[in-house]
């Protein structure tokens, strides 16, 4: 009997599948629902759109269930050089996008992933006794993990119908003068891309970006910081999540030097509003909140799930309390699980949700 359904076959779903298999769940007990069997398809398109060459994540930014051996080890072996390892222990190793995608492709082939993917889109999840219906004709799944990904790209309302606008994560070239809206990692990448393409760049931002290596403080990736976060009350947690969501990009001369030079040459400037540029690139990230995802919105509405603004209030193990009990599990992975794990939209976050899900699967297994 197929026990487990993963809804969503992107990177979060892929990492979850690998974690479950590593944890002893047989592959034929798992069904993955996604129209596209390539787990990196969306991520690849977005990375290509912003010409991303290196990952922001460090050594743990890979899809293997265990943190060792990561991509630094793989890179060191391949290059026969200790440099990636040394950079890794100094938190300065950022795997290249090519290396990461190659690693995903390899794992996809080795893990039997494609055989587990049912190429269908899940519109809603319906609880039933001892499990959930996911799609008609596919039976009941005792444990369901929703790895739905981001619910679409975010565009400022006032620019939604502007014909000059393209989102940073959509394919685009650069015109002579480019206005980049936003101040996070994607925006910073676009500033450098456009400058490298010979464009003049206008940065439109509502606030100055924070400069930090990762989206959230490092201790929040582990129990040390997480325990405090998970003890917070609702309003405090909302404030924290908002702070973590503020735009940021890493510090360092690789970012600052070209921007300083371009500013000195009159090719980079900051303005408060969009001006008359021919091209406006919105590096404004993703839409946030359960209400933007049809499946989640349906769940919330049907079962009156506990929410706080845009967040579904999940348990610390990312499960949805109202629909989880001793016999079944409904859990979230990826960005929707932020209430439990602030960096839920990272690969490490996906693993956190997957491990917690694995614990529940193990605990409730009946054959």
């Amino acid at each position: 009997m197929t026990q487990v359904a993963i809804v969503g076959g992107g990177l979060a779903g892929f990492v979850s599948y690998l974690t479950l298999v590593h944890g002893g769940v047989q592959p034929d007990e798992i069904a993955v629902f996604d129209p596209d069997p390539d787990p990196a398809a969306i991520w690849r398109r977005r990375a290509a759109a912003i010409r991303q060459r290196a990952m922001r994540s460090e050594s743990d930014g890979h899809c293997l269930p265990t943190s060792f051996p990561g991509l630094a080890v793989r890179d060191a072996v391949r290059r026969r050089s200790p440099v990636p390892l040394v950079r890794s222990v100094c938190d300065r190793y950022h795997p290249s996008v090519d290396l990461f995608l190659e690693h995903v492709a390899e794992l996809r082939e080795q893990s039997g992933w494609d055989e587990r993917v049912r190429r269908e889109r899940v519109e809603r999840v319906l609880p039933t006794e001892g499990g959930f219906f996911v799609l008609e004709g596919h039976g009941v799944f005792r444990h369901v993990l929703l790895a739905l990904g981001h619910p679409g790209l975010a565009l400022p309302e006032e620019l939604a119908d502007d014909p000059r606008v393209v989102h940073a994560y959509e394919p685009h070239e650069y015109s002579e003068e480019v206005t980049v809206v936003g101040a996070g990692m994607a925006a910073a990448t676009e500033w450098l891309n456009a400058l490298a393409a010979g464009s003049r760049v206008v940065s439109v931002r509502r606030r100055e970006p924070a400069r930090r290596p990762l989206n959230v403080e490092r201790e929040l990736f582990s129990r040390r910081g997480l325990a405090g976060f998970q003890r917070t009350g609702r309003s405090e947690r909302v404030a924290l999540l908002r702070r973590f969501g503020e735009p940021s990009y890493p510090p360092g001369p690789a970012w600052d030097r070209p921007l300083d030079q371009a500013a000195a040459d009159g090719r980079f400037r900051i303005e408060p509003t969009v001006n008359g540029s021919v091209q406006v690139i919105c590096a404004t990230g993703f839409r946030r909140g359960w209400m933007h995802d049809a499946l989640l919105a349906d769940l919330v509405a049907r079962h009156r799930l506990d929410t706080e603004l845009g967040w579904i209030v999940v348990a610390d193990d990312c499960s949805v309390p109202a629909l989880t009990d001793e016999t079944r599990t409904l859990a979230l992975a990826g960005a929707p699980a932020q209430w439990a794990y602030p960096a839920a939209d990272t690969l490490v976050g996906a693993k956190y949700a997957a491990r917690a899900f694995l614990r529940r699967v193990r605990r409730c297994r009946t054959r």
Partner: protein
Amino acid sequence: MSYTLRGRVDSRLAAALLPLLAACVLAALVHAWWPVELAGLMLGVGLALDVLVYDRVLDYQPGWLAVPLGVLELLLTLAAADGFSVRAPLGPALAFYGGSWLVAQALGHAGFPLLRLSYAEDGGELGSSGPGAAALVAVAFAAAGGIAWAKLPPTVHLAQGVHRGPLVITRRENLVGERGAVVRGGIVVRADGVTVRNGSVLGGENGIDVEEARHVVLDHVTVAGAALDGIHVRRSQVTIRGCVIDSPAGWTQGIDLSFNADKGMSMVEGCTIVGGRQGIVIDSSGAVVSGNRVSATSLQAITMTEMSMGTIERNEVVGALGAGIVCDDQSECMIERNRVSGTRADSSTDALSQKGYGIISNYKATAELADNELLGNARGVTTFAGAVVTDAP
């Protein structure tokens, strides 16, 4: 990685298991406890730092920080080893530490994450394996301690009063004299690992006679009226601490360590020696003579001779007749921070070496001097017969 406190302790204990096992094997091979003691000190220092410092200071610990923290822990471990008198040879001790550190790094970066999926996420905690590791470490130390306890030499208490000697010790044991315990006629040591603590010896040809024995400790013993030597050591390795020796007039010596060159370094420390022809004689031996007070000798107070090697430091030589400190007969002596005062010339002889020199280097000996204080001696420092005196660098 961001460790929790429990994660630090769990990881520390689990990583200590393999080195601890290696230490037990090594201890069995070298017939010494220093590997286990060192492993215990390393673990103790590490745990103390984990609880008192690291957990409070380091919210996040990047991988590279393991190197400076490893050096810090090494220095503290060495200091603790010194403080607890763990007699670990430096080279092997450093190698053991380095090996243990590498094992801990390999486990922390690779082993534990492979064994436990959520190792990093759990801040280094090992779940139920953590207490298991703690229990195993405790069992290992308890077992080692139990074996050490079982192998402790028996202790023989010498009751108050006079005991007819000579007492001959032919097995490893501790002989502890109660207050007022006196052995008349001497003590003879003929076994390794003997400790004689406290107690007094009266008379005898030699007060305490040690022959063909290693790791002998003579701790706070008193000898008076021995016909030849207060303490007489041949082909042995000894540590003599805090002794008091009163030698009668005539051809007597306070302490004579001879023909021990191949037995390792001996130590004479903190003793008080009065009278006799010679106070302390080191002959064909390696020794450290430190912090003793030698007075009223009638030939030489402290002598290192016949190809001996060693250090004569922080001793006080008072009122010697003839010579104070002598480095003789091709010996290599470091003579440092001693205070030699009131050395008088022996008018009964024409020997140049008896003219009241504070320090003498004689017959191809090399004496390296530093910071010695010579007060009121008939003569100062001299060399005879191709000997050399140098200033310490």
